[in-house]
């Protein structure tokens, strides 16, 4: 195996594009090294992207936030600007693993690992976040929901790297929230999860909303019907009933030792309702 530490994204994409055999990007390594240890992956090349300029930073501009692919989740939690603008994204990122893992793991890694139960992904999808994909000689920006195509699978081509996640600026009275169900109090894999992002008008009526569910389908689901159920409302009981029903209907979960199909469908609705209420309250506080 060869370990490479390129200093530019161009060099990194070239190395990956020209690699023969199994090539992997290394940022936090909290999935890659576990895979190597347990023999699931045998890399011929590892491209460590942490020394590439800008990838380790959170940049704030007029357009919003740019979170570099090598930014550990703990650093997101330490950014008060990011937390204020996107509390749901940050709380999701900070639910991943222990403190030791937090200091290394990244949201781009979480996304590219492509687990249906990834914690940060429903929050990013609800937030309408985008991924900046760098490839040999090109760069494109795609919606987060277009990155994963199935468990462990992404739409990235050979040589492509996600170099950053973009989160837009917030209109006033906007907020997001993320919740997951796990049988323990922490450090577990989501059985079901929900991210809700919304913007209110001055009277507290939901103007725009996005609702995303995790661990209930091969990829994270963006549930348009759930968003429609609460747009134009103040989250009254009727709207919340429709939100729950839309979420449960959208789920295509598996039955496994962590949760049955019936349980996951029901809990998806419950979590989406609770997350919507938290986001609503946060948006009203501004």
């Amino acid at each position, binding site marked *: 195996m*060869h370990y490479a530490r390129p200093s530019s994204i161009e060099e990194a994409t070239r190395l990956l594009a020209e690699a023969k055999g199994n090539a992997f990007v290394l940022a936090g390594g909290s999935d890659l090294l*576990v895979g190597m*240890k*347990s023999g699931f992956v045998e890399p011929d090349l590892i491209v460590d992207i942490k020394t590439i300029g800008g990838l380790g930073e959170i940049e704030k501009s007029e357009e919003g936030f740019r979170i570099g692919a090598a930014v550990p989740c703990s650093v997101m939690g330490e950014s008060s600007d990011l937390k204020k603008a996107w509390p749901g994204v940050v709380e999701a990122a900070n639910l991943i693993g*222990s*403190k030791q893992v937090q*200091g290394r793991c990244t949201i781009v890694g979480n996304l590219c690992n492509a687990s249906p139960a990834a914690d940060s992904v429903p929050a990013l999808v609800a937030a309408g976040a985008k991924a900046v994909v760098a490839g040999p000689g090109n760069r494109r920006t795609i919606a987060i929901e277009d990155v994963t195509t199935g468990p462990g699978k992404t739409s990235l081509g050979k040589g492509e790297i996600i170099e950053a996640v973009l989160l837009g600026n917030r209109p006033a009275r906007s907020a997001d929230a993320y919740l997951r169900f796990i049988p323990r109090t*922490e*450090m577990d894999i989501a059985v079901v999860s929900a991210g809700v992002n919304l913007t209110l008008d001055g009277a507290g009526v939901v103007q725009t909303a996005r609702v995303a569910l995790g661990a209930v389908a091969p990829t994270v689901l963006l549930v348009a019907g759930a968003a429609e159920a609460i747009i134009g409302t103040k989250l009254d009981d009727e709207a919340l009933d429709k939100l729950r029903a839309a979420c449960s209907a959208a789920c295509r979960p598996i039955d496994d030792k962590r949760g049955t199909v019936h349980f996951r469908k029901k809990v998806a609705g419950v979590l989406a309702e609770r997350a919507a209420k938290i986001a609503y309250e946060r948006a009203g506080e501004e």
Partner: protein
Amino acid sequence: MSSVAVTTTINGDEVEFLCQSEETLLDVLRDRLGMTGTKEGCGTGDCGACSVIVDDRLVCSCLVLGAEAEGSRIETIEGMASGDTLHPLQTKFLEHAALQCGVCTPGFLLAAKDLLEKNPDPTEEEIRFGLAGNLCRCTGYDKIVRAVQDAASEMKGA
């Protein structure tokens, strides 16, 4: 197989080593540098026994490649005491009998040190959450939590 030459700082000393590119920092510390204070539990980042501090971040050294240590600043359990003087956390772990078999202890001590550096006056809940990445199968955790609380109050007074 290709070797990587790495220059890093461990407990304040500049250290150079050669390692295989797939070798973890944990294996480098233990097998190449003879620093066996850092323990291997699970080897997959779940138990925290191999915790070290790299550039002021608590990490599992089993989830870091040795090659990644280039240019970084590493703190291990071997650097926690100053000569014969134990760190207050080490003293309090002894006083409270916050260890039995001892395999988890170096990881707990570094995790607790990192916690108190960032939050010198943690609540019991913050201590329990802060140390949740470290597993102990002997003590039942209560003695560890008491030791950290006691060390925190002593260090504040110091």
